[in-house]
Every structure is written in structure tokens, then in C-alpha cells.
């Protein structure tokens, strides 16, 4: 009984009300917001995850949508209505072919070292290319590889996911097929003994900092 009384002091708002709150916060915020952040801002006892699920459903098929970006959530306009938004379109800096390919390699092979990027492209990565991708906040430094020289690795960012409308790096187009075809492997050249990066690019440590799916 006493416990019940205590609980009622911190009565969580009804779900419909929580949904309104999540809606208001996501509407007002440009950057994706995590469930933890939502909970921190909402009254004690609220469960943003449930409210979020309801809200997402409500916006299905609408002009704006609730989208997942990594482990965070945001509202974005429906892509099929992009044609209405000429005034809002921001000019994206034209990326060189090298930059686009480097970005794709980081996304599909992350965490990946510069040497591996060069190995895949068969050409050295020019100094400006990586710099440009970091500046766009599409890639960032990951953990150093535990191989001789401890080379820096690169991984993609939440900004990258947000920009390309991806829930997680697992949702990259064709990822499963590429992996099944063995094209994401780092095969050493025959005869090249003790290739230093051989075991390091083990599939298991791909997408290491992905958080598991949540409600």
C-alpha cells in the first residue's frame, strides 16, 4: 500500500501525453535525439521508447516522418516530397570520385585503415580526401588497429547515417550480398606471408560500436 502511494507521487503522464511530449521535442530539434535524452527531458516515470513507437506509427505515410538514426531519433520530411523544397535545398559540396569511393569503402569496411582503403582502390588516398570527409563529419577516427604501427582506423558517423537516411550501418544498400560474396574480406595476396592486417579485419569487429536494435 505504502509503495502504491509512493508511486502515485511520481505518476507518469498517460501514454498519449508522453507521445505529445516526444512529438514536441523531436519537432523542435534538428539533431537526432536518443531515447536516453528523451527520458532525461520528460517527467519522471515516462517511457520515451513506448511513446516513440506510437508516434512513429502515427506519422506513417505523413508529410514528415519519425526516422531512426543510429541509436537516436529525428523527424524528417518524406523523401517523395523533396520536389516541393527547392528553396530549402542546400548545395552539397560536389565530392570527387575519390572521395565518394573512399566514403563507401569506410562505410562498408569499417573500421578500416588508410592502407586498406588504398589496397582496395589500388591507388594512394590523397591528403585532401580524408580531410574533406572528416570535415563533413561523415567519417571519424575509430579505434587504433592492434597491429604493428597501431594504424588509425576510420568509421562512419551518426551524421553520415542521418545524411543518407540510414538507421544503422547495417542498412547500407547491398551489404549482406557483398558480405555473402566475400567482397568485404581483406584477402592477402597469394604468397604474401603474414599479412599484417589479415586477422584484424575479421568480420566480427565490424560495426563494433553499433548499439543493438531498440523498440
Amino acid at each position, binding site marked *: 500500500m505504502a509503495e502504491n502511494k509512493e508511486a502515485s507521487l511520481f505518476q507518469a503522464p498517460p501514454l498519449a501525453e508522453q507521445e505529445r511530449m516526444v512529438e514536441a521535442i523531436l519537432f523542435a530539434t534538428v539533431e537526432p535525439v536518443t531515447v536516453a535524452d528523451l527520458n532525461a527531458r520528460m517527467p519522471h516515470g515516462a517511457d520515451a521508447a513506448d511513446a516513440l513507437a506510437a508516434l512513429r506509427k502515427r506519422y506513417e505515410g505523413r508529410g514528415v516522418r519519425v526516422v531512426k538514426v543510429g541509436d537516436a531519433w529525428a523527424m524528417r520530411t518524406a523523401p517523395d516530397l523533396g520536389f516541393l523544397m527547392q528553396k530549402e535545398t542546400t548545395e552539397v559540396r560536389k565530392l570527387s570520385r575519390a572521395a565518394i569511393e573512399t566514403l563507401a569503402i569506410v*562505410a562498408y569496411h569499417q573500421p578500416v585503415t588508410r592502407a586498406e582503403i588504398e589496397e582496395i582502390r589500388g591507388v594512394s588516398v590523397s591528403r585532401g580526401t580524408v580531410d574533406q570527409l572528416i570535415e563533413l563529419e561523415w567519417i571519424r577516427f575509430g579505434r587504433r588497429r592492434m597491429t604493428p604501427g597501431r594504424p588509425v582506423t576510420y568509421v562512419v558517423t551518426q551524421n553520415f547515417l542521418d545524411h543518407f537516411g540510414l538507421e544503422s550501418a547495417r542498412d547500407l544498400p547491398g551489404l549482406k550480398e557483398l558480405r555473402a560474396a566475400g567482397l568485404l574480406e581483406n584477402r592477402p595476396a597469394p604468397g604474401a606471408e603474414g599479412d599484417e592486417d589479415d586477422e584484424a579485419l575479421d568480420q566480427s569487429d565490424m560495426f563494433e560500436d553499433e548499439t543493438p536494435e531498440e523498440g
Partner: protein
Amino acid sequence: MSDEFDDDRLPVEERLAAEALIVDVDGFEGPLDLLLTLSRTQKVDLRKISVLQLAVQYLRFVEEARKLRIELAADYLVMAAWLAFLKSRLLLPPDPADEGPSGEDLAAHLAFQLERLQAMRESAAKLMARDQKGRDFFVRGIPEDVERVRRVTYTATLLDLMQGYARIRTRDDFRPYSMDREHVLTMEQALERMRGLIGFMGEWADLSSFLPEGWGLDPARRRSATAATFAASLELAKAGRIEIRQDETFSPIQIRKKADG
């Protein structure tokens, strides 16, 4: 390419020259890119590609480039040499005494590299064809910040941080930290000066006359120089080189060379 940032050991000019050459080869981005393009003429699945035929095509391309006096980047020539080697392996019957990888293994690896590069090209195209923020879908135009609870937070990016560090570590006038000594005469300096002057000393002379030129005007400089010169005098007296006297408290301090000093 095995070592990260290996190319960085080359001087800038050399690297720029190398990059210019790569661009010169009909816009190909390296030998692998060229091979991939050549492979399209075979119009088959990359897994079924004839590496031998490809090697021949590549060598012909390089030959052609030489005839046209196009200077090929070293990468292209290295690949040409490797493909010539591969070609010979593929054509000659295997030597049982040879322990190296077989021509088939090498060819299969090259086919794998080409297929992987092709796959990344296609993936990059798929990625760029996706709906993009600011082009196909949009963020909130008026993010709300109605209730202005003004709280200042400071921010910096990783680039700021690294550039800041780079700035410090490459500063031209980088020197170990030391106090600004423009207005300070050290005892060592005074001692050095006094030693040089002792030889020319005659009778008792005022200590203040031994201050270095230009140090008597500014009060801070005068104080520092006086203290240093006095300390140096004590050192020299202790060493038996000079004598010191003062007639009464606060009167001028006088020194002279010791007769046998």
C-alpha cells in the same frame, strides 16, 4: 602500400609530380582502375574474366602509351611488370620445383581485387543515389528555442584540436619555456663582464660604474644589473681576485683589483 602513410616520406614535389602523372593517364585512378575499365571490353562476369587476356590488354596499353610518349606513373609500370610475370606463369607449364604461388592463384587474386573494387564502385553509386538530407528530405526549418534560458557552452571540433596541437608543435620559434629575460641581467653575465674588466682596473672604483652600458637608466634594469654586478663582485672577492669596501651603511660600494689577483 603496406605501411600506412608510406607515401608521406616522399618530398611534396615528388608526390605532386606522381599525382600529376596519374591524372595524365587518360583520367584513370591508378592501374587497378585501368584494368577494371579494360575488363569491360570482355563483357563477362568479373569472376569469369580472362586474366591472361586482361594482362595482354594492359601490356598493350602501356606499350601504346610509351609510343605516344606518355610518361606513365611508377604504379602503372610496376603493375605492367607484375602482369608480364603473371602472363608468363599462366602460359608456361608449372615448374614443380617452384614453391611460389601458382599463376592461377595470382590470377584469382587479381580477379578478386577487381571484383571488390567494382563492388565498391557500385556501392558508392547506390549510396549517392539514396535520398539525401538537404536534397530529398529536410530537417526542421525553425528549430524552436523559444524559452531562452541562456546557458553558454563552449565547443570545439576535433579538427580545431588537432590543428591547435599542430600549430604548437610546428611553431617556428618553438623554444623551451623560459622567463622573459629582456630586463634581467644574470649573475653569470655580470661575472663574465667583470672578469673582462678586472685587468684594466686601477684604484678603488665605484661599483655602479661597472654596470653595462644602457642599464643605468631604466629603474628595473638598473636594479637587476646592480644586484647581479654586486653578486658577481662577491664571487670575485671570494675567489681572491678583488677587494671590496664600503665606508658606511648605504654609501657607495667600491672595488679594486687585488694586488696579487
